């Protein structure tokens, strides 16, 4: 997992969110603009500058009891403002497994 510290130097290349796993159950969560966490990507606070991203991350990391392993993840904004995960890893975290669990 990419530690937030390693990300300090990273500049974001496009719209991004802060994501983490909720401490008590491990569920994938996104930092909201109300300083909380949501399991729904569309609730996430979107940042588009590196400074805003770092600020959102710092605030998220400080909430160690709420969620763990916070980091910045890319998103794509589709037509009509629909937010989609920006890469395969985030797609899998957001939508779940890409595989069939039972033989098919």
């Amino acid at each position, binding site marked *: 997992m990419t530690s937030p510290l390693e990300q300090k130097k990273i500049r974001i290349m496009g719209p991004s969110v802060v994501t983490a*796993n909720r401490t008590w159950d491990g569920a994938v969560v996104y930092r909201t603009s109300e300083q909380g966490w949501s399991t729904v990507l569309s609730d996430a606070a979107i940042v588009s500058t590196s400074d805003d991203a770092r600020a959102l991350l710092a605030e998220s990391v400080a909430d160690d009891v709420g969620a763990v392993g916070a980091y910045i993840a890319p998103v794509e904004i589709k037509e009509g403002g629909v937010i989609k995960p920006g890469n395969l890893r985030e797609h899998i975290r957001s939508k779940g497994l*890409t595989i069939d*669990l039972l033989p098919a």
Partner: protein
Amino acid sequence: MYAYDELDRTLINERVSEFRDQVKRRLSGELTEDEFKMLRLQNGVYLQLHAYMFRVAIPYGTLSSKQLRRLAHVARRYDRGYGHFTTRQNIQFNWIKLAELPDALSDLAEVGIHAMQTSGNNMRNVTSDQWAGVAPGEVEDPRIWSEILRQHTTLHPEFSFLPRKFKIAITASEHDRAAIKIHDIGLRLHKNADGETGFEVLVGGGLGRTPFIAKTIKPFVHGRDILSYVEAILRVYNQYGRRDNIYKARIKILVHELGIEKFAREVDEEWRQMSDSALTLDHSVIDEVRSRFSYPAYEKLPHMPDELKQAAHDPLFERWRKNSVAPHKVQGYSIVTLSLKPVGGPPGDATADQMDAVADLADKYSFGEIRVGHEQNLALPHVAKRDLPQLWKALDRLGLATPNVNLVTDIIACPGLDYCSLANARSIPIAQELTRRFANHDTADMIGRLHINISGCINACGHHHVGHIGILGVEKNGEEFYQITIGGRADENAQMGVLIGPAVPYAEVADVIEDIVEAYLALRDRPEELFVDTVKRLGVEPFKERVYATR
């Protein structure tokens, strides 16, 4: 089976209470994640992509039916109804909630199962041959020594904060089913010229970023001295193993940097000063542990019962029997492997319902005992041959009689990017696609023994280096690519596979593997020549040409 006594049970319960307290302090904020991480890892709890992952130990791969039912219960009650058997005789649950973990552990503790040291920088679950105690020609049941080592390594006061994780595997057979040469310490039980039982000790094996085959550090260490010798190795490692770089912290790097001779001298110097210590095992102590392994009361049964003769007319049964049934040390009995590699299924997964059903079959046909092997399959170790036809029908109904053990579709795969936070690429869908490509059992039979191992990153949990064909997922510009190696093996002749060329994209992997297999079929000098032997004879070039000529 090893019967836990009151002391073993007390310790497991004490560990559960300790972890319950640690989780409580974490959830209240008394412990930060940084402080808690090592504590949860020491008890098998990872944080993965979707949730916490919980890894439970199955020491030396032996389970009772009662224990397997309890694993099914945990899958159902605390997870999503299935579990994943790993390459080191563990089972993983992928969706566990931290807040519920202490209860899950407590349920497991009631049947003597725990998750101690299934992760973290300590001595991991001691693994062994899944056929231990039943394979013909064994020197001795290696689980006796595995259990001695399991106890000794559990909550060890000196070695619980090593530079990096530390894995020990033990075999007592000529043919190594425990992959001891890719372990930090590999132990091969054998007898010396005086007929005494002891170990060839190998050290410094491992896969990952810098793979090494273990080297022999001592050809014979007497059984009574094995704890002190292992302790000497660990003390040298604990003091001199690198802690400045996580990628150079395994003992294999220390052994490599010092050279095996110098490392061996350091260990000998340490051992000399401790070899008459309290660690020396006298006969009575070894006998005490041995006495708590119980063996079934086997019947005197014919080598070839009528039931088997009749069933031999059914070609489907015969195909399964020839593939999945192995000789037992006792006449009239067999070892039956249960393939967890159905066509199109995730390798090594079992549903809670399957686990319960296997537990019932173990009670009915295998004296209540189940084994777990590093190839991510299960086994019933004591099946009377007369029961094989009935057992086969039952397994077939459960989807556990795929006749592909050791064949091209018996794929070892890590969870990959579908679950794992370290992965660069997916493993499971690659495996699923390959099982569909080679779904025809006659073709697979014709190809013969062929191990495909898939890892979704360089950490090599899918043992790709030692697959006859190894597939390693990498990331290139945000896309999944796969490097292919051939010629690796994990047995007594262990060696690393050789890269055949540039990585190929996700969509082309199955085509490439088909090309490699077709090349082998054209190149082998007779049907009995195994894939890995053809590669050894011809090298990678002819395979490389075949794969890259058209790409």
